[in-house]
């Protein structure tokens, strides 16, 4: 195999993180954690993809006073589509502040429900397990909710991930390296996200590092 082809194939897996990239059209290529695990959430691989439970990305960063956590899911998708609020999916944000950090010391969960009292469902979010918050944070989506010093919002947003995965497919077919810094596969696409902002001192445990990860789970079992 020509070296340029080898390189392109290798870079493909590394940069776009797209398994079986050679077999599927570019529009469904996974990246970061979008559309992974493909055997459960990617329509190119299965007929019953669980889009709602597909975590696209998790972001977490701190300021002097706050910890911000963003979980994105059910994307990327066309800009014509609405957000995804699936009542049967439970999302987890797990935080480890002890030793070892891999053991969760705090578990935040959020899920969606609907108000059907006035015809079409109007969706809401319930967030539980937030440190320093008494009970659940509950309210409508597309609304900034505030309780006990914590901010929460669920809604439809621009997909924040940026990467040229389309260029990879072109590189593969052309045999010429065609990554383009001006071409963003995730540009012009949306997804659903939940943002949680927490006072930092509710998470800190001395100088221990803080580990954060997310999960998506389906009520009653995997989609078949």
């Amino acid at each position, binding site marked *: 195999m020509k070296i340029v082809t080898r390189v392109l194939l290798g870079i493909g897996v590394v940069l776009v993180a797209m398994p079986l990239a050679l077999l599927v059209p570019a529009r469904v290529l996974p990246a970061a954690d979008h559309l992974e695990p493909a055997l459960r959430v990617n329509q190119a691989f299965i007929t019953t993809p669980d889009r709602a439970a597909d975590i696209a990305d998790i972001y977490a960063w701190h300021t002097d006073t706050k910890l911000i956590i963003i979980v994105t899911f059910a994307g990327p998708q066309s800009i014509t589509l609405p957000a995804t609020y699936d009542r049967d999916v439970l999302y987890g944000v797990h935080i480890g502040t002890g030793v070892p950090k891999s053991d969760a010391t705090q578990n935040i969960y959020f899920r969606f429900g609907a108000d059907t009292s006035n015809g079409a469902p109007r969706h809401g979010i319930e967030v539980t397990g937030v440190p320093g918050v008494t009970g659940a944070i509950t309210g409508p989506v597309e609304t900034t909710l505030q309780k006990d010093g914590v901010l929460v919002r669920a809604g439809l947003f621009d997909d924040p991930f940026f990467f*040229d995965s389309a260029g990879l497919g072109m590189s593969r077919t052309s045999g010429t390296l065609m990554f383009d810094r001006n071409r963003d596969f995730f540009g012009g696409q949306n997804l659903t996200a939940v943002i949680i902002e927490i006072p930092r001192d509710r998470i800190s445990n001395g100088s221990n590092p803080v580990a954060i990860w997310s999960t998506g789970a389906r009520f009653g079992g995997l989609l078949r």
Partner: protein
Amino acid sequence: MTAAFARHARFALLLATGLALAACNSSGGDAPPRTTVTASAPDPVATAATTSYDVLPCFFQTVPGTGGTTVSGLVIPDVLTLKFGSPAGFPNGRRLQDPVPDITLAAIFLDLTRHSPGVLAALPLNPPANDRPFRPDFPYLALPQGTPPIADATGRTFAFRTDPVSAYVRVDRMGMPAVPTVLIAQSRRPAYNDANPSDDAKGNFVGELAEELRILTNALADDFIARGLTPCAKPA
């Protein structure tokens, strides 16, 4: 023995075991049944290269600016790690604007005593920023593109499930970006996503991480070298 040395020694043992098992399996030899490290078909990447690399040095190298954290410490367990006493920015947490793929690539492929973790992002290989500016304040994410239908926000009494966590079945997990998608073979990703960081920490996937990195390194190392970059892996 310091705690750090003990962790390195344990990782080396796990890694050596995993690599040995992987090597046995790939050679078709009389490999013992794999327990914690399961044989898996690697993603289609590249044909065999003429040079085979030892990727162990890549896992043990320290990532500059992290206070002594090694690459293995970044990817195992598969979590985002934040040190509140240090400035935010990947790999100290993950901000929206961080060029994560290029930094990750540099960390796992390049000699970080010679190159900055940001060397590939500086080329750059990928778009350097999102196509929409992020907002400086809550909720930070950019508004949705186009004019999609936005959910009615007037609901007040919602019917949520009240089932316990145990009633749900894991579909996906995510921590450190690119770990499962880059370094875990496709066929093993369901099992990987079913596992927890505590399983990662036990070394359950160490052999696979190393094997996938070895395959990719064997394919890519000559190209990094051709671009004037020094791989962290050494010829075996």
